[in-house]
């Protein structure tokens, strides 16, 4: 089978052509770097994405702190992770890189703050 993908790893956005049979990748063409080959393989077998959102903050100078995951998670788990993020509220102060949810949904990645929010 042949599939055309856009690599989302970096702004180059390489157009990849993947030739595969079931779960066996036969060839990947069009990647400017080896990350593209890994991406294509991952994308065929089990697509993963990183997501960003925000979490409510109490007692802070801003009502929200922006968050992201430390690494990509399976695409089909995105809305499970979003539900956990939405249920969360943290108290200021919050530091950049602070872990707000460890091992979110048991997927091996943490939800970390990406902004500093000082106390009022």
């Amino acid at each position, binding site marked *: 089978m042949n599939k055309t993908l856009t690599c989302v790893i970096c702004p180059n*956005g390489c157009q990849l052509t993947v030739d595969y049979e079931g779960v066996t990748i036969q060839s990947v063409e069009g990647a400017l770097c080896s990350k593209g080959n890994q991406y294509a393989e991952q994308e065929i077998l089990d697509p993963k994405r990183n997501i960003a959102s925000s979490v409510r903050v109490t007692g802070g100078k801003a009502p929200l702190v922006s968050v992201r995951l430390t690494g990509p998670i399976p695409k089909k788990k995105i809305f499970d992770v979003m539900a956990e993020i939405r249920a969360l509220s943290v108290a200021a102060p919050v530091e950049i890189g602070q872990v707000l949810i460890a091992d979110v949904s048991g997927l091996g990645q943490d939800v970390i703050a990406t902004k500093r929010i000082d106390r009022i």
Partner: protein
Amino acid sequence: MTTQNRSVIIIGGGPAGLAAAAALRQQGVEDILILEREHDLGGILRQCIHDGFGLTRFKEALSGPEYAARFVDTVQQAGIEVMTDITVTELHADRTVVATARSGRYVFKAQAVILAMGCRERTRGAIQIPGSRPAGVYTAGIAQAYMNLKNIMIGRSAVILGSGDIGLIMARRLTLEGASVKGVFEIQPYPSGLPRNITQCLDDYDIPLFLSHTVTAIHGTKRLTGVTVSQVDSSFRPIPDTEKEWTCDTLILSVGLIPENELSKMAGVLLDPRTKGPRVDEHYQTSVAGIFAAGNVLHVHDLVDFVSLEAERLAESVGDYLKQAPADEEAVPVEADPELAYTVPQLVRADRDLTVSCRVRRPLNRVRISIWQNDQKHVTRRFRRAIPAEMIHLTVPKEKLVPGEPLKVVVEHE
């Protein structure tokens, strides 16, 4: 009112202003002042919470606030003077800067002024969509600020007009927050955002993208109830009998960005009709001596990494300018191929290493883009595909350049 003197005044504390300030300090420039109208430094990055920033610059994928924090920390650690909650209201050709804050009115005189005010969004008025004026019509950046900074959910079901990157990012953001995004409609026959954002913001969430379509009417009295969408022909005219009604409570406009020019115009800075920002030489100096510009105020960028790099190149020249105004090699034009929307810089003096940034007008396959001077080819880059969404950079070392001879940026099909 007393006038305060500064070596350098930077108008705007976003990515361009911060990078310029940090780089100037590294060169030993002491007397720098950043003027920022918001309460916090960081500019638009503060609301760009998605990741993917910094891959070029820091070799890792950061969110916008993290990328900004690295520069804010550098600026603060370097002890660079910053005033926030202050708005520059006047800029004059003699580099007088007038600013207003709650604490009063300030007048500064600078040896060099750096324009780093960023850009503004085109609005409903700019694209003249007919219909009523209900609530629920937002520009993409405003929608992003409400959701990511103010914790205000903007609607439940959205249509997005324009496939600019912020619109695509907001399509994903709304979907993650539980809203339904009906579709993205783009008037051009190709997307205006980056391919990776089409994949990770639309395709991932099964949000359809309709090319050669536009919104031709807006419905609703108090709140938006829906929009009419039509197909357009190759001259962007709506095709009769292609109208379709879409029910939605939110319309997001992602229809282009324009450099912020109010202060530049006040100072008499000449603008380039193609970039819609100041015309500059390779020192990023505008037509007014001692006034420099970099970042989105100069031309709208696709990646913040390139804004930082541009501001750092600017800082190099501003540093030299402070030591002694350049011996004024005659500036000659950079001629852009008709396939290119523009080049920055528009002029060269050939007295420093040159980086030319440009964009193609339409998607092109298999092209070579070269810089020529006097039948001498200085540099060539080959592209399997070049698209308007991606800025292209070409560099030429100073040694190769001949002062006084115009440059040509040439696009060749292979």
